[in-house]
């Protein structure tokens, strides 16, 4: 039996939605679910004041969430298994530190989506705010595994301090893509803002077109033929569907390396 939570009214304050996970709900009866405390700011109130609870046939580890706006923060925080479908807009920190399972957002999502993600799959049909996959305040690492797939556009600093995993942005993205990236793979299919790869130590930025401006410590490495690219492109296609960046993997690609101000072993591959 899957659970449906339908938001019945919007609130002036943002709602902390952490802890509402499908595995937890599956073990509760509807009345218990209705009594789960939520927090508007520092004000607790039962879930039933904001949501209608429905139980329907379906996988027991599935939660369908129908928000009225993007005011629900931290949806799916720490998710380890199961599936959350958000039929609408999600707030900030969606999929924060998730370790497994699936989150599908059929609208837009706010800032720090997939922050510190360790595993699983997070897909957003719309746009996301700034700092997608980035670490929370005080943390040293951003995305450390799993897949973040943004079908729309992403704000600035997507992939900040990314350590492992794959992020794919189908649309455009803002400045400082892959800022201080540690490792991992970040694929941007649309336009990219300024200073992509600034401060990156290792990792791969896979771009469809040359960014308007690269930092002075990102240097031209020439055109290269890279056998691993076929594997990577196949994997991206398999995991995100749709057309991968159009590239003949046997052809050479333009490669930039850097950031020489840091470890300097990162790379930006431009597949135009």
């Amino acid at each position, binding site marked *: 039996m899957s659970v449906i939570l339908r938001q019945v009214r919007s609130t002036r304050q943002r709602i902390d939605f952490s802890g509402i996970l499908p595995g937890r709900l599956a073990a509760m009866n509807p009345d218990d679910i209705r009594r789960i405390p939520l927090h508007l700011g520092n004000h607790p109130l039962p879930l039933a004041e904001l949501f209608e609870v429905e139980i329907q046939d379906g996988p027991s580890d599935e939660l369908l969430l129908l928000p009225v706006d993007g005011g629900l923060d931290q949806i799916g925080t720490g998710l380890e298994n199961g599936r959350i479908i958000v039929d609408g807009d999600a707030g900030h920190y969606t999929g924060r530190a998730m370790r497994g399972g699936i989150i599908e957002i059929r609208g837009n999502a706010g800032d720090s989506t997939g922050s510190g993600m360790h595993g699983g799959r997070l897909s957003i049909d719309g746009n996301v705010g700034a700092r997608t996959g980035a670490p929370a305040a005080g943390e040293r690492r951003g995305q450390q595994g799993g897949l973040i797939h943004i079908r729309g556009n992403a704000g600035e600093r997507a992939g900040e301090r990314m350590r492992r995993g794959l992020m794919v942005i189908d649309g455009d993205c803002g400045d400082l893509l892959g800022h201080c990236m540690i490792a991992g793979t970040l694929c941007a299919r649309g336009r990219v803002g300024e200073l992509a790869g600034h401060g990156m130590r290792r990792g791969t930025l896979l771009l469809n077109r040359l960014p308007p401006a690269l930092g002075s410590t990102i240097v031209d490495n020439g055109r*290269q033929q*890279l*056998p*691993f690219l076929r*594997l*990577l492109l*196949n994997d991206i296609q*398999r995991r995100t569907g749709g057309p991968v960046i159009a590239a003949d993997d046997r052809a050479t690609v333009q490669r930039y390396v850097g950031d020489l101000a840091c470890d300097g*072993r990162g790379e930006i591959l431009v597949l135009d």
Partner: protein
Amino acid sequence: MQINGVVIEDTFAEAFGMKATRIVITAVNRHWARQAAETMTGFATSVIGCGVEAGIENEIPETQTPDGRPGIGVLLFGMSGKDLAKQLERRTGQCVLTCPTTAVFAGMQDGEQLPLGKNLRYFGDGYQISKLIAGRRYWRVPVMDGEFLAEETTARCGAVGGGNFLVLARTQEQALAACEDAVIAMRRLPNVVLPFPGGIVRSGSKVGSRYKSLMASTNDAYCPTLRGLVASRLDDATGAALEIVVNGLDEQDVSTAMRAGIRAVCARGAEQGITRVSAGNYGGKLGQFHFRLHEVLGALT
């Protein structure tokens, strides 16, 4: 038992438990993939002298290789996982890493893992790059023609080495021709390799020697030039004997390959000089696997 006039001796081939792994070598074209594979498996006929027994298993089309380039599957067999790991790394480093345009991938995923690119990556002197793709780790090592791509590990499994049969014929040419047919038939099969030159052995051995330093010596019972000097197993009509040794990933693979090979030999028949098919064993006390020729050919009779 006789097939097409060829006597199938009521004896058995004695084979041993081994450890095996498979790797896939790709390159810009089939020529260079094969070049690397042949170099890697060139001196890998017997664990006694070479440390490993290896051979080319098959050609792999572009559509089935990890990087979409022509590939060659190679099987390597060692007496222990440790021996196998040592030879795999040494041969990959000296024969594949050095070969233009090549990349190397695991040909087995499940089971205990052997280092493939795991240590070879240090050739990159700190400029090597790791990529984790679809749960598998790869190493990109900078080399003078671009990058050498190597999967970090490949799996190993238990295997069977030393399946064999002997082909006895009136002349050397007739024995060789029949064995060539057998090799062609056997190399079509998956999961097996014939580690000796061209798949054929002319220096079959027996255990022991009159010289203390040698643990094996020529199989005098099958040497035509020793007829009359030793207890020969050759009749007067037999002028030459050749052996085919086959290693496989399991007992069934070896048995299937032996059947295909013997069948090809027998197709030439007594009319083309083939007199007998026999097999090599050590009395049955050394090897865990016994392949009785009559049972192997059971499906034929």
